[in-house]
């Protein structure tokens, strides 16, 4: 298919429709407003549900309801709005329901600002809600990749009966880029949702319950262990990443999303000078792509984490590193997007070093 030029938010919205999204529940917040705006027009056209909820809290609980009754559901928001959804997300995971959540990140903490940021890494990957839980979180870098993972997310969510988050920064939400909306994406063979509380107990002959409450701690533990099995499966099967110019790299940048694109520019420039630098680009930030770090070439001595935050993913890099490489970090905060030259300068600090 020919590529069309689309704004990131609108492309995500259209991708959701193409991914089979039955219903959207959301609340306006910059910089993701074009998602609900697009869907308020186009869901109706497609005979699907669009509801502007009274708040993010209500929206995520509508998602919970609709997902519980078997629909493919989307919500989208930005950083403080995602904070408000944490209880609801914890419920959705606890009740093993699928849904897709888009977070177009802006600067924090608090009201912060509305410029692009990656400051929600912890909020997204550590589960800001209560209890042991995880969700698959994609952090794409281009609109094409964003559109592809949005579409795929609905399948993945159904497959694991777990929420999937798409974490992009405001830049990806706001920019326009040509994108093939109909690129083939991997599809899962999905069983029917026989567990859903669809209001068809008559037809079904038995009643379904959607619940996250387990008053007996041994029951709740069993439930937690069952969930853990799913997480382990995700860790095994869903790590996604790209290795860029790694073969002979001395310094390996670890960066995702817009930050990875900027790193690419830096690497391109540095490689032209003969500087041996590569990139590990996590495409999923949960599960964190530990596998990418398994067989790095002998030449590597330093991992340089780059983030549009003050060092959140860097903790995951530390976790996988376990003393193998020197670790370095560079980040910008509050909505400041770094320039290529800054990154080049950072890399130069570490080339020529050793373990």
């Amino acid at each position, binding site marked *: 298919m020919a590529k069309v030029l689309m704004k990131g938010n609108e492309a995500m919205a259209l991708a959701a429709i193409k991914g089979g999204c039955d219903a959207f529940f959301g609340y306006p917040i910059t910089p993701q407003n074009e998602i609900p705006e697009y869907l308020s027009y186009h869901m109706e056209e497609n005979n699907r549900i669009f509801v502007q909820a009274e708040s993010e809290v209500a929206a995520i609980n509508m998602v919970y309801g609709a997902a519980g009754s078997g629909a493919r559901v989307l919500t989208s928001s930005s950083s403080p709005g995602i904070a408000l959804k944490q209880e609801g997300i914890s419920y959705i995971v606890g009740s093993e329901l699928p849904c897709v959540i888009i977070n177009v990140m802006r600067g924090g903490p608090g009201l912060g600002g*509305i*410029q692009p940021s990656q400051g929600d890494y912890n909020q997204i990957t550590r589960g800001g809600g209560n209890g042991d839980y995880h969700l698959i979180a994609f952090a794409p870098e281009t609109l094409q990749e964003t559109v592809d993972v949005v579409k795929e997310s609905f399948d993945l969510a159904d497959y694991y009966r777990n929420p999937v988050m798409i974490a992009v920064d405001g830049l990806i939400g706001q920019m326009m*880029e*040509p994108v093939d909306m109909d690129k083939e994406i991997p599809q899962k063979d999905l069983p029917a949702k026989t567990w859903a509380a669809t209001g068809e107990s008559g037809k079904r002959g038995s009643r379904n319950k959607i619940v996250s409450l387990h008053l007996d701690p041994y029951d709740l533990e069993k439930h937690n262990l069952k969930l853990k099995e799913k997480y382990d499966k995700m860790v095994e099967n869903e790590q996604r990443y790209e290795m860029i110019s790694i073969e002979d790299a001395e310094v390996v940048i670890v960066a995702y999303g817009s930050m990875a*694109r900027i790193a690419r520019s830096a690497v391109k420039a540095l490689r032209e000078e003969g500087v041996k630098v590569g990139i590990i680009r996590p495409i999923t930030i949960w599960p964190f792509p530990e596998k990418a770090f398994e067989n790095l070439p002998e030449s590597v001595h330093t991992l340089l984490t780059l983030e549009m935050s003050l060092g959140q993913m860097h903790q995951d890099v530390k976790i996988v590193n376990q003393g193998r490489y020197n670790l370095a970090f560079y980040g910008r905060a509050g909505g400041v997007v770094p320039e290529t030259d800054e990154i080049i300068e950072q890399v130069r600090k570490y080339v020529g070093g050793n373990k």
Partner: protein
Amino acid sequence: MANTEQVIIAGFGGQGVMLIGQILSYAATNKGVNTVWIPSYGPETRGGTANCSVSISDEMINSPIVTSPDSVIAMNLPSLQKFEPKLKKDGILLVNTSAIKDYNYREDIKVIKIDANKEALSLGNLKVANMIMLGAYIQASGVFEKDNITEIFTKIFTDSKAKLIDVNIKALETGMKLAT
């Protein structure tokens, strides 16, 4: 066209600077090359100044951020002050002199001055000042041919807006002429 072209378009909100950028990206998409359009966004654009940047390239566009543009289109003074210093050496600066009178321009760049408001008014529509600047830009940079742009006009000016195509084409042509 150049292998990679980066341009920043800036002015007051309402001067149509976002549209200039979008048209460039549409034209690039139509030609099958890579492009990224990035707007400034949020309340700071309300009333104040607005700008966008466009990258166009045969290759994959890595960093979408334009820090040293090949060209700058400045529709008002604050924009000129903000972006002129960032322009690459030998870069092209297009200035709407209707809004910017005296200014001490850098020596190492090519400055093209267009009295866009006046020209637009003479076409009977102040709103097409932006298309005059666009015309000047494609002429000066050589990034696109006229047809690449007019093709886009027919796509974005539809229904009740279709009647605007002609005046916009005229504006484009005016701009191209003025930049020759």
